[in-house]
């Protein structure tokens, strides 16, 4: 079988992993800031350029303006170093992120129903697979429902994760009604007294009204059995996503009452700065970050680690 543990050596802590992923990608940002502050003082031009540097990390214009605005208000010595400015910025980012950093814990209901939603290819299946591995290793009994009955081999993909986590995967043939499948899965989860039921759904773009309606229907059908379910509706966001993440969050939230976010692929060159602007604009809980394709590559979201990694500050 393919190697599917963490792609890096597991002796490295996940903090280091996240940081090394993020730091590679934030190198440009750091270089940029370094260049800025050896060249200029903290004048208007500098702030403008700093603002742009934050924008290149996908923080978005609004957040970038706000952050540099804060900096402009603060009193600095003229001979400000690049490191000083990075720390100041990171502190502000931590302030934004801290309130939303809330891990996903499947407690309080049995079965605790987790619904994963998101656009195509964002990492829903992989994320659920990782969660299944982690929660089973913590001793919980987990069940997976392969409600992506549309994409070719989506069921097979989740089944492989089921094997890895050694949990049952409920499925139906290609093209079956996803809502009916979710309903059945919940029945089974109850019957087997599972702690957690995780429902994988087909990726869909938020502007496809019909597909979004289908998702809403799936939720309604689940509620017929348990009107407190789903207990967590997680929007999985691709870490390379740009400003469209705002619209994605807004629409998925309206349609299926998203309760938290997971952002994936932060092991790549993308800096994931959209997380900061999302925290600022919608304030939804940020549960976890994906930093690779292995089962250990999902980590609770930590505001300080994230902000410091983004700004390239080593602990």
């Amino acid at each position, binding site marked *: 079988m393919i190697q599917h543990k963490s792609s890096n050596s597991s002796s490295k802590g996940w903090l280091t992993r996240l940081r090394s992923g993020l730091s590679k990608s934030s190198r440009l940002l750091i270089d940029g800031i370094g260049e800025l502050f050896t060249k200029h003082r903290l004048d208007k031009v500098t702030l403008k350029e700093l603002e742009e540097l934050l924008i290149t990390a*996908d923080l978005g214009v609004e957040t970038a303006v706000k952050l540099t605005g804060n900096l402009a208000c603060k009193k600095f010595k003229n001979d400000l170093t690049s490191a000083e400015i990075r720390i100041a910025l990171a502190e502000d980012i931590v302030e934004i992120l801290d309130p939303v950093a809330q891990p996903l814990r499947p407690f309080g209901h049995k079965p605790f129903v987790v619904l994963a939603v998101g656009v195509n290819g964002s990492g829903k299946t992989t994320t659920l697979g990782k969660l299944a591995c982690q929660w089973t290793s913590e001793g919980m009994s987990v069940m997976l429902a392969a409600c992506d009955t549309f994409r070719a*081999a*989506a069921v097979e993909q989740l089944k492989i994760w089921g094997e890895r986590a050694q949990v049952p995967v409920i499925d139906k043939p290609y093209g079956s009604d996803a809502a009916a499948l979710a309903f059945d899965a919940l029945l089974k989860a109850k019957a087997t007294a599972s702690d957690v039921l995780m429902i994988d759904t087909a990726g869909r773009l938020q502007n496809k009204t019909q597909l979004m309606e289908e998702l809403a229907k799936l939720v309604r059908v689940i509620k017929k059995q348990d009107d407190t379910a789903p207990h967590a509706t997680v929007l999985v966001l*691709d870490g390379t996503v*740009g400003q*469209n993440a705002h619209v994605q969050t807004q629409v998925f939230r309206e349609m299926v009452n998203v309760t938290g976010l997971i952002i994936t*692929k932060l092991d790549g*060159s993308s800096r994931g700065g959209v997380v900061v602007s999302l925290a600022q604009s919608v304030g939804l809980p940020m549960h976890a970050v994906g930093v690779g394709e292995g089962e250990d590559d999902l980590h609770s979201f930590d505001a300080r680690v994230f902000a410091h990694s983004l700004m390239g500050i080593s602990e």
Partner: protein
Amino acid sequence: MVNVFNGKLLLGDDMFGRLSERIGSVFNRLKQRRKLNESDVLSVISEVRVALLDADVSLPVVNLLLERVRKRAIGREVISAVSSGQMMIKIIYDELVAVLGSDKQSINLDYAAPVSIMMVGLQGSGKTTTAAKLAKRFVNQDHKKVIMASLDTTRPAAREQLRTLGEQIGVDTLPIIHEETSIATAKRAINTAKLQGYEVLILDTAGRTSINDLLMTEAKLVKDLVNPHEVLLVADALTGQDAVNTAANFNERVGVTGVILTRVDGDSRGGAFLSMRNVTGKPIKGIGVGEKVNDLEDFHPERIASRILGMGDIVSLVEKASQTIEAKEAENISDRMLKGAFTLEDMAYQFRQLRNLGGLGSVIGFLPGMSKLQKQLTSANIDDKQLKRQEAIISSMTRTERINPQIINVSRKRRIAQGSGTDVGDINRLLKTYTEMAKIMKKFGKLGSKGVINALIDDNNPLLNKDAMLHMPSAIDSDYSRLHNNRK
């Protein structure tokens, strides 16, 4: 101008709405001037910068684009019928289109079989689906015998996904061998394609982050092994600023021949198009517009340009603006012509118009009562190439020469000939045509524009001199279009 931005252009979404409003208000603040001045241009540019960044165009690309806009815009004359804002939109839009590349390029399969195509990109960008879409197109449109092979040994069930898609569209896939490495699969794929007479081989690869050394090296290895005709970078249209990193890394480390953007059916503004295209310098060879195997379309830079600008009606707006600009220019010229003031500049403009309208043949053919003229033109061997040559000659003249052609003496003629790659004889011929046209313009001036039309329709009119007529169509533009519409 004011109306254009009120309500109509605002999209449902707040963020976009605010942006167009912002830009709109800057445009509205611009004073009406004869020429765009530096401070106006810069104030528009700083707002557009925000709009582009919010559209996810990567910063370095934004800077490059706006520098081009700045250069083109400052000092540009504003035609009286349009506002400075409209002029600016037109310039920005044109530059966007230019950077996006107006060259439509499709995938060329005219090579010795098997022609291999390799898909590369980040995780979840849409490589597998796009592979199937391409395969379907090659089979249905190009009537090729196609095989697909997945080298994705990383993501669970990735190879099964491609196989399933192959079954759906009736395209063969390389049988899966579970323990095989991607390199070994690549070798097997080529051999199979060769031995079994496939004309096209599509290789799907595992998604990889562009900073993963090991996997980027592996992609290059596969490429060197397969020597594909196309290496297509498949990227998500929802991508943010990272587009430049992805594009640069894949282009430098693996080498790509084209880009395919996916999820264009989403509602992202699509700044990634601009970034990808600009960083790789490679054409966009298709766009994915849905999850089904038919949802692959050709790339149209104009549509993406208006989408990036984030103004729903921008295309019609721009077209309207540019039509106004052109119509106004034409009006100015025909006014002057009818007054008998007809310069070489006006003549050059006429040539350009003729060519823009789709060439001589098509324009003349449309005009009522023009069949005779058309025959004359054909027999006189006047074609678009000649128009271009004449334009070149005129553009090698100084402005003074164009306005006062009588000052063009022998030494000037020699200089102009050299500058335009022609000879003095050509210059003489052009000047003769000009003199004749100017003469006729004077006569037309006396007839009034109604008289022009009548003169044109009447085949027996003595004014029908082929040299002169050649330059007429756009001078009677407005009347012509009225006539033409009446016939519908």
